[in-house]
């Protein structure tokens, strides 16, 4: 077969979001890949400057619907840091609780999608069926299945009732059993294993050099986890283990994620048993005093960083987001060299990509004239001033 090019995306069944990959093939082997990002670029960071602090929280939440809680927590922590607000202990526990629930839903989602990418739709169906359990619990607590809107500057917006706690405990029982099932049975299915083992492999050194984060890094043996290394919310008081693996392939990534589900369940149990009493928020001022802060958060896919600067107004002066998928994308490009077409979807899915947080404007290329224009932040601000 002659060489050919296949486009994957922006609309493609393997991708739930628009991104464009062009693969140059030689037979079934990938010769080169050209990644084109930016389809989802909405200009959130710039828009934050047109929002009040409280509005910005909801905008930040919608950077992405999968780790919505991660982004808002990260952002709120930065703002609280600038404003010098002391978040009540109960609020910090609830933030961690929702964070772990989000991790479980996100990892189950990943497991299902991984199944879907390799044609194992049954696993997709089962993983997503069981994911409904955690979504129901989240909905009962926060009022929405996905964008929970739990965070506000200074604490959380909704308290946990006794009934919620009871429901959570029963949800935990189901999840515990199912997480065990997926680890022991589904991951042992050899046709599924065969599609993951040795695929998308990166070494520990590569993982460090490429700056990978989260499960992608941990699967390659890099022992990092912000919850332990730089505790925020309630994590400083909660005992848990960091799950790592050695092989750096997708199977290891799957094992790490499933292990993390079980750790998350442990954390949730601890939180439910040790939930402190007290208020859930402190009142935040409408104007945040001048200052800047950087906040880090261990999102389901890895380290999320927010930088926030205030000039003392009722709107942020600058918000900068570095989300985990961006950090992991290098690893994808690296492990994509020389793979077979069949492995493309699962490798992309391997880092659990969701590009909505990753899209940023780097370069404009006029397709007809080929003229390249690089826009800097100042140019952007000037060009799109309202």
């Amino acid at each position, binding site marked *: 077969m002659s060489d050919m090019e296949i486009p994957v995306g922006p609309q493609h069944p393997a991708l739930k979001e628009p991104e464009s990959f062009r693969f140059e093939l030689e037979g079934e082997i990938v010769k080169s890949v050209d990644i084109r990002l930016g389809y989802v670029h909405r200009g959130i960071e710039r828009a934050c400057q047109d929002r*009040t602090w*409280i509005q910005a929280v909801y905008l930040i939440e919608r950077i992405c619907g999968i780790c919505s809680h991660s982004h808002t927590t990260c952002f709120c922590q930065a703002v609280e840091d600038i404003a010098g607000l002391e978040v009540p202990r109960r609020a910090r526990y609830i933030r961690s609780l929702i964070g772990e629930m989000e991790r479980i839903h996100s990892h189950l989602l990943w497991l299902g999608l991984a199944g879907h990418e390799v044609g194992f739709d049954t696993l997709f169906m089962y993983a997503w069926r069981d994911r409904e359990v955690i979504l129901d619990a989240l909905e009962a607590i*926060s009022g929405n299945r996905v964008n929970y809107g739990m965070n506000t500057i200074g604490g959380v917006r909704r308290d946990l009732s006794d009934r919620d706690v009871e429901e959570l405990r029963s949800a935990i029982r189901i999840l515990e059993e199912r997480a065990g099932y997926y680890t022991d049975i*589904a991951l042992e299915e050899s046709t599924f294993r065969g599609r993951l083992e040795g695929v998308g492999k990166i070494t520990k050194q590569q993982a460090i050099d490429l700056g990978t984060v989260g499960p992608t890094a941990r699967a390659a043996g890099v022992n990092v986890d912000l919850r332990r290394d730089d505790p925020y919310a309630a994590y400083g008081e909660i005992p848990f283990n960091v799950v790592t693996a050695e092989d750096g392939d997708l199977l290891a990534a799957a094992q790490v994620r499933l292990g993390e589900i079980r750790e998350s369940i442990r954390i949730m149990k601890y939180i439910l048993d040790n939930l402190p009493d007290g208020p859930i928020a402190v009142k935040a001022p409408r104007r945040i005093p001048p200052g800047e802060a950087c906040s880090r958060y261990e999102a389901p896919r890895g380290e999320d960083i927010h930088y926030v600067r205030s000039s003392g107004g009722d709107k942020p002066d600058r918000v900068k987001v570095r989300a985990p998928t961006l950090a992991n994308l290098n690893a994808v490009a690296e492990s994509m060299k020389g793979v077979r077409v069949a492995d493309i979807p699962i490798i992309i899915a391997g880092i659990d990509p969701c590009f909505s947080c990753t899209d940023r404007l780097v370069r404009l290329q006029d397709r007809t004239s080929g003229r390249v224009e690089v826009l800097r932040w100042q140019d952007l601000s000037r060009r799109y001033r309202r």
Partner: protein
Amino acid sequence: MAVARMLPELIRSLFQRPATIRYPLERVPAPKGLRGKPVCDYSLCTGCRMCSRDCPAAAIEMRDTGERTPRPVFHYDRCAFCGQCADTCPKKAISLTSDYELSAFSKDDLVSLERRHGESAAG
């Protein structure tokens, strides 16, 4: 080699009731705190515009309804169902109902007007 490891579970499913909820006939019970369609009780509202100011999606329009001060009108095609308006309102006039099936053929149907004062107000 362990092929078809999930088989026992699959066969069990074959004889179990499906997990499906036959949606239009049955429903997934909506939890009490569901953040559905926000509505405003105009009798409590003082028209202070706080809700409209805090809404992240610019979904609240303050419209003259014939009362002394304008009243909030929700554009559900914009609303992000975040509930901030309800949190903000000093009079607790806004609440989020558990009504979530809002689909419509036209965006015109996605505007709330709780109380109309003559046709001119509606336009």
